[in-house]
């Protein structure tokens, strides 16, 4: 193996991790704040991709799809929180998990009814197609673009969390939900927004992934499993954890692809099992008490 190949492989791992981060971040934010494990997260990733495709075909521009779809699906996520998940907060933590599990089924089938079960082509926008010479090898321009977008989103998210009042509330709430009640903040409004934000992020991930992987109703299923792995490794509820674990898993997959390619999927679950056995609450998670 030459060094250039390994460097390329590392880079494709990072690019792969970028999409994982988008999905896992939403999953983690929602769990950290609301205590909800969203099993419909993968389905909403897929719905995001379809929404992006639909908007892009209406407007004739990928950019509108990239802009509008995540916002629209984020709003749709708020409806889900308001009408399906909110009634369950007083109940066992298992209930929202089970509800979203059923919701995943419904969303996938709804998309099959509307868009067909076959999948739809999603062309890479012409201004981003082609390959770039990185010096160590060739890499698709679109994938470089994805890494850049994710980096910008992470930066915006960081600024939002550190510099705004809403961010302050979210950070405080993730540490101790009790404190918001004390401060007289309307938690339900915060939760609504956080859920919408989390879903918006996964929908954005879906739109970004679409030109690489095409669009089909089952595309969320594998992504969900991957996002769970990332979130659990990083520690559920930890944003830094989601980012670090997303990159870690991406690189682990790409390195396995180089040395033992057929193990590329299994390595993810093995990594997760290993982390859980050594640190049951993940790399950056807080221990659960009970």
């Amino acid at each position, binding site marked *: 193996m030459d060094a250039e190949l390994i460097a390329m492989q590392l880079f494709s791992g990072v690019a792969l991790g970028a999409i994982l981060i988008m999905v896992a971040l939403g999953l983690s934010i929602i769990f950290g704040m609301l205590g909800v494990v969203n099993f419909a997260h993968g389905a909403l990733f897929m719905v995001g991709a379809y929404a992006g495709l639909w908007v892009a075909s209406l407007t004739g521009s990928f950019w509108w799809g990239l802009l509008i779809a995540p916002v629209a699906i984020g709003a749709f996520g708020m409806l889900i929180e308001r009408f399906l998940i909110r009634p369950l907060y007083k109940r066992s933590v298992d209930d929202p998990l089970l509800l979203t599990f059923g919701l995943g089924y*419904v969303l996938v089938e709804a998309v099959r009814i509307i868009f067909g079960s076959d999948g739809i082509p999603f062309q890479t926008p012409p201004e981003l197609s082609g390959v770039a010479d990185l010096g160590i090898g060739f890499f698709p321009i679109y994938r470089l673009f994805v890494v850049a977008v994710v980096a910008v989103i992470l930066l915006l998210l960081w600024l939002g969390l550190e510099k705004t009042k809403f961010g302050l509330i979210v950070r405080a709430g993730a540490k101790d939900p009790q404190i918001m009640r004390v401060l007289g903040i309307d938690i339900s409004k915060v939760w609504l927004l956080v859920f919408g934000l989390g879903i918006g992020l996964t929908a954005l991930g879906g739109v970004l992934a679409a030109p690489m992987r095409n669009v089909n109703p089952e595309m969320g299923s594998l992504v969900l499993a991957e996002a769970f792995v990332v979130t659990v490794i990083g520690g559920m509820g930890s944003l830094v954890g989601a980012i670090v674990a997303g990159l870690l898993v991406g690189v682990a997959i790409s390195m396995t692809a180089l040395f033992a390619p057929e193990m590329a999927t299994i390595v993810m679950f093995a990594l997760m099992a290993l982390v859980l056995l050594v640190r049951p609450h993940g790399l950056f998670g807080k221990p659960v008490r009970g």
Partner: protein
Amino acid sequence: MTASTSSVAAVMSGPAGRRGWRARLTAWRVPLSILALCLLPWLLPSQALAVNVLIYGLVAVGYNLLFGYTGLLSFGHAAFFGTGAYATGIAIGQFGVPWYAAIALGILAGGALAFVIGLLSIRTRGIYFSMVTLALSQLVYYTALQASSWTGGENGLRGFTVAKLDLFGWTIDFLDPLKKYYVLMVFAVAALWLVSRILNSPFGAVLEAIRENETRARACGYDVERSKLISFTLSGLICALAGTLSALHLAIVPLDILHYHTSGMIVMMTLLGGAGSFFGPFIGALAFLLMEDVVSLWTSHWQIVVGGVFILFVLFLPKGIWGTALSWRAGR
């Protein structure tokens, strides 16, 4: 959800006779189950469906021991169901083991796996427990996919059709659907009897105590981790038995049996019928499979109906079909 479904269970633990019809129902639950199972193939559209209800009902019963009675939401029970099936198929197909010994091997293999996965996972709590069981069962899935010389990989395991059962000089035509059903039913009934015994036993009370309040159960002097591990293993054993029956019934073991979608289906069935109740899981399996069977005849979009019904149950009838029926009757 686990907590809210258990007033049924509270009743069972009271001495018989004090609570009228409910206590009588509890006392007669095994004979009633036998009666219902005997009638099943005559009531359902097909015998193959009846066998499926039997098998998935049994998986759900095993799962319910852990989820409904111990309060642990596992997302990895497909691993034990599948391992039971694979072990039986491999024992018959590759080693020529007689069918009854293959059943025993299947149960042992699934139970042993449950013990190991239980050992690793019960140290974690809450949502992490669900995630660890999910991850470990996916590892089992990928292992089966890779070990194709043993399992047939993605093609599934085949080549172990049992056409005739020989026992004590008797020969039963195992291709006759009705005879097959009743043979498999004997095993399912034995498992149901065992589960009923467990629920009535002192250990059954311990499980409910753990589900209700783990901290207090520990303070009372129970080794919670050990009790959970036993519950996990027993639950795995019963799911493995269901797996062996599935292998004998279909004469194949599909790789999908190990996928987490199967685990999800088991959870859905248990909830639909009513977690934490004795009849609930069977009723859930019946309702789920019947719904899928009927709906898939008039639309290929059956998943939207099944998923929608499931959402409505979580929202409005968290006690499931049987649990809700019981509370209605009790007027609560």
